[in-house]
């Protein structure tokens, strides 16, 4: 065995020894990343915001009207999603905190075509959150 082959073998042995450790660290990083993921990259502070109109049927009814005016043209009349605009019914939205949905409505995702809706008063944005949540509650039952 010449010196080059010996060097290669040594490196392979070293790699075999360290690979499990590297994989374990990678898995840990991925699981931490998954655990830290929030709805549409909303910051952790967003999740702490409480919906002042939670379970308020009147507010949700107003939210339905606002949704029809401002959101339905992209997300569909039944929140089913249209083209690049995703569905708002399903586990992703159902598992999101109200504050995260509020944050996303406020900021949008300008690089992916979702405008921010900060021009609507925050009360109206919360009403839209109430409406989306009420639809997801019904769909989840």
């Amino acid at each position, binding site marked *: 065995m010449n010196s080059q082959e010996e060097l290669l073998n040594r490196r392979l042995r070293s790699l075999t020894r360290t690979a499990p450790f590297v994989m374990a660290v990678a898995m840990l990083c991925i699981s931490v990343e998954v655990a830290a993921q929030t709805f549409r990259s909303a910051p952790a502070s967003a999740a702490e915001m409480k919906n002042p109109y939670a379970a308020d049927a009147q507010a949700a009814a*107003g939210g339905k009207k606002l949704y029809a*005016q401002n959101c339905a*043209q992209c997300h569909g009349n039944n929140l089913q999603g249209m*083209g690049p605009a995703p569905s708002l019914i399903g586990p992703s939205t159902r598992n999101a905190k109200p504050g995260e949905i509020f944050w996303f409505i*406020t*900021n949008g995702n300008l*690089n992916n075509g979702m405008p*921010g809706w*900060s021009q609507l008063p925050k009360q109206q944005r919360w009403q839209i959150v109430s409406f989306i949540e009420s639809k997801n509650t019904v769909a989840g039952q």
Partner: protein
Amino acid sequence: MTNGFLLRTLTAFCMLGLAAASAAAGDRPYCVTYDQTMEEPGNLEIAARGLTATPQGGSQFLSGVTEFEYGAKAWWTTEFYLSGQTTANQSTLFTGYRWENRFRMLTHEHIINPVLYVEYEDVNGADKSLLEVVGFDSQFDALVPNSEASRDREREIETKLILSSNVNGWNISENFIAAKNLAGEPWEFGYAAAVSRPLSLMASPDECTFCRENFQAGVEFYGGLGEWGKVTMRGTSQYVAPVLSWQVRDTVFKVSPTFGLTDASYRAMLRFSVQYEIAGFGRKVAKLFH
């Protein structure tokens, strides 16, 4: 121009608005000031704006602007204007076009949200649309007869820094304007500032025409700030204008009685507009070619 003519024009604007089926969204009531709101991507908003005033010692005029605003991206809105005017005892004429682009500079919502505005305009000297006031713009500019003023061609680049904040239901917006006539004249400066609020911050559960959330009210201030090397408010036009908008179903009407504060300003003007959106216009056009 007779009052009958003005009445007919106003009626036509209202009819146009009531006939519109569209999706309008949270538009501010401002007639001059821009806020951070961009057109939704793929939507086309068509607006007809009018302005009527009488310069001291001159004839009453009515200027009209047709506006096509398209949401190219969520952060980029592009807009094309065609303008014209009619002056009593003179003539009615097309005065030119403008093409503007607005770019939202930060992707997330902040306390102050900056938007960059760049416009190219090619209008003649008879243009009386007063979409902004810069430099030493004056009511006396409108005393030049249409036949003479229309021979003068103005090609300008106009830039604005739009700063806008939404706080507790209030919108506060400031525009800093710099305009340059490409014929080599100095930079001219101006400003516009405004504050507004919906009459109700919550949406009522039922469909309604006259509920308070459909109305927004506010006030605008705007005027010239002189030119390069001569930045001043002396000799400039300055205005204050209450503004009111009303959203009927999906169409927005705006009205703004405007009052001049300096000798160079028109003593009073009336601005009015109607606008509607064609939701998903880009998608519909794209379908035609597939």
